[in-house]
C-alpha cells in the first residue's frame, strides 16, 4: 500500500496545472443577469482535466521510475476517488455557503439541476462524488485508448451515437433516458449503484487497455 500511496501522492502533485486552472476559473468566473451559474459548477473542470495528466504525462514517467503497471492502475483509481470526494465537497460547500449570497438572483448549481439536492445535501454530495468518479474513469479509459485503432473507433462510435440518436425522436428518448439514469437521477441509491457499476466496468476496460499499452 505504501507504494500505491506514493504513486497517488506523485499523481496529485504533478496535477498542479489542473488545480491552478480550476481554481482560477472557480474564483474568476462571473455571471450577470437574474439567473447566474454557481461558481461551484466550475470545480467539475478538475475532473475533466485530471485524466489528461494521468494518462499522457504521468504514466511513462512513473514507469521509467520503476513503478509497476498494477501500482499505477490502483494509484489512478484511488486518486480519482480522492479527487471526486474533494470536488464534491468543495462544490457542496460553495452551494451551501456562497450560492445563498446571491439572494436576489436564481443560482444554478448542477447539484440542483441533476435533482440530487432533493435527497438532502449529504446524499447529494455522495451522488455527485460517484458521478464524478464515473466521469474521470470514463475519460481515463477513453484517453488511454487514443494511441490505438480501437480508441479512434470508440471516438467514432461515440460521435455517431450522439449524431444519430439526437435528431431521431425514439432514439433521442433512449439517449435522454441513459443520461437521466447516470446523471439526472433523483433516486440516490439507483444513481450511486449505476455509477459504481459503470465505474467498475470501465475500470476493467481500462485495465485491459493498460495491459496492451506499450512504451
Amino acid at each position: 500500500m505504501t507504494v500505491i500511496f506514493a504513486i497517488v501522492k506523485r499523481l496529485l502533485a504533478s496535477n498542479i496545472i489542473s488545480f491552478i486552472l480550476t481554481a482560477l476559473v472557480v474564483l474568476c468566473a462571473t455571471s450577470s443577469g437574474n439567473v447566474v451559474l454557481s461558481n461551484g459548477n466550475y470545480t467539475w473542470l478538475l475532473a475533466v482535466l485530471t485524466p489528461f495528466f494521468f494518462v499522457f504525462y504521468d504514466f511513462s514517467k512513473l514507469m521509467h521510475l520503476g513503478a509497476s503497471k498494477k501500482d499505477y492502475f490502483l494509484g489512478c483509481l484511488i486518486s480519482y476517488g480522492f479527487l471526486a470526494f474533494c470536488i464534491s465537497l468543495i462544490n457542496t460547500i460553495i452551494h451551501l455557503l456562497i450560492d445563498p449570497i446571491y439572494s436576489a438572483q436564481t443560482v444554478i448549481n448542477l447539484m440542483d439541476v441533476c435533482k440530487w439536492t432533493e435527497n438532502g445535501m449529504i446524499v447529494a454530495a455522495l451522488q455527485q462524488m460517484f458521478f464524478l468518479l464515473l466521469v474521470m474513469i470514463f475519460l481515463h479509459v477513453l484517453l488511454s485508448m487514443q494511441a490505438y485503432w480501437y480508441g479512434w473507433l470508440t471516438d467514432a462510435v461515440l460521435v455517431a451515437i450522439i449524431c444519430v440518436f439526437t435528431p431521431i425522436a425514439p432514439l433521442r428518448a433512449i439517449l435522454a433516458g441513459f443520461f437521466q439514469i447516470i446523471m439526472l437521477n433523483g433516486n440516490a441509491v439507483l444513481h450511486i449503484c449505476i455509477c459504481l457499476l459503470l465505474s467498475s466496468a470501465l475500470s476493467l476496460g481500462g485495465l485491459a487497455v493498460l495491459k496492451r499499452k506499450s512504451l
Partner: protein
Amino acid sequence: MIELRQVTKQYGQATVLKNITLSMDEPGIYCLLGRNGAGKTTLLKSIAGYQNITSGMIQVDGKTITTSTLDTGVSYIENFAKHFNLPVRKLIQIASEVNPNYDFDFASEMMERFELDGKKKFNHLSLGMKTMVSTIICLASNKKVILLDEPVLGFDAIMRVEFYNMLTESFQKHPRIIIVSTHIIEEIAKTIQKLIIIDLGSIRFFDTLQSVETKAFRISGLQKDVEAATRNLNIIGQDRVGDLVTCYIFDNPPKQTASLEIHPLSLQDFFIQMVGHKGGVKK
C-alpha cells in the same frame, strides 16, 4: 532466470528479431553488442515487457513477460528516458517510494560520487547527467533483472570509468542479471562476464568473455600455411592481401610455427568478425 524461446518481433514487413532462443540462468553482468539497428533495443524492451513480441515466449523468473504483465520484476532504462522535471534528489526519493526494494543509500552514494547536484532539476541537466540519473535509478531499484540500454551515451571518459565501477559495485552488493547494451566495446570488457552479440535480429554469439580471450585468434601468413593450420577450425572471418592471408578463428589456436603469426583478437575485432561486416561491405 531469463528465457527466450523462438522470439520473433516484426514491425510491419520488417523482422527485427528472428527466432531468438536464449537462456540466462546465472546472475552476472551481460554485455549486449550489436550494430545500429541490430535489434538490441527491441530485444531489451521485449524482455522488460515494454512491447509485445510477434511470436515466441519470454520468461523472467518463470513469469511470462508481455505488456499484460502488470509487475515484471524487470527494470529497464533507455538513454533518452524522460522523467518528472524535479530536482534530482526528489526524483531519486520518488523512485525509492515507488520501488519496494530500492537501495536509497546506494543511489545517494552514487549521486555524490558523480557530483550530481541534488537541487538541479532534471531538464536542466546535461545529456550525460540525465543518463546517469536514469542509470542510478535503474540500478538502485534492485529488481531481479536490470536492463541498461546504451547507458554510457553522453558520458565523458572519467564518467565512463566511474560508471563501470558503479556497475561492478552494484552487482557485488546485489548479484542479479544486468544486461548492458553498448557500442564502446573495449572499455566494458573488464566489467562483464558474458557476451551476447546480436546481428540483423539473430544471436550470433553468446558465451563467456573468457571464451573469447582463450579462443579468438588472428592467424596470418602465406595462404597455404594458413589454410593448413586452420583446417577443421571454426573460421569466423578472413582477409586477403595478395598471397598473404589473415584468418580469424574462434577455436583452440593451432601450434605456433615460424611461418605463422598468431595473435589473440581484441573484443572489438572479434565483434567485427562475428557480425561479418567491415567498412559497410558484407564479407
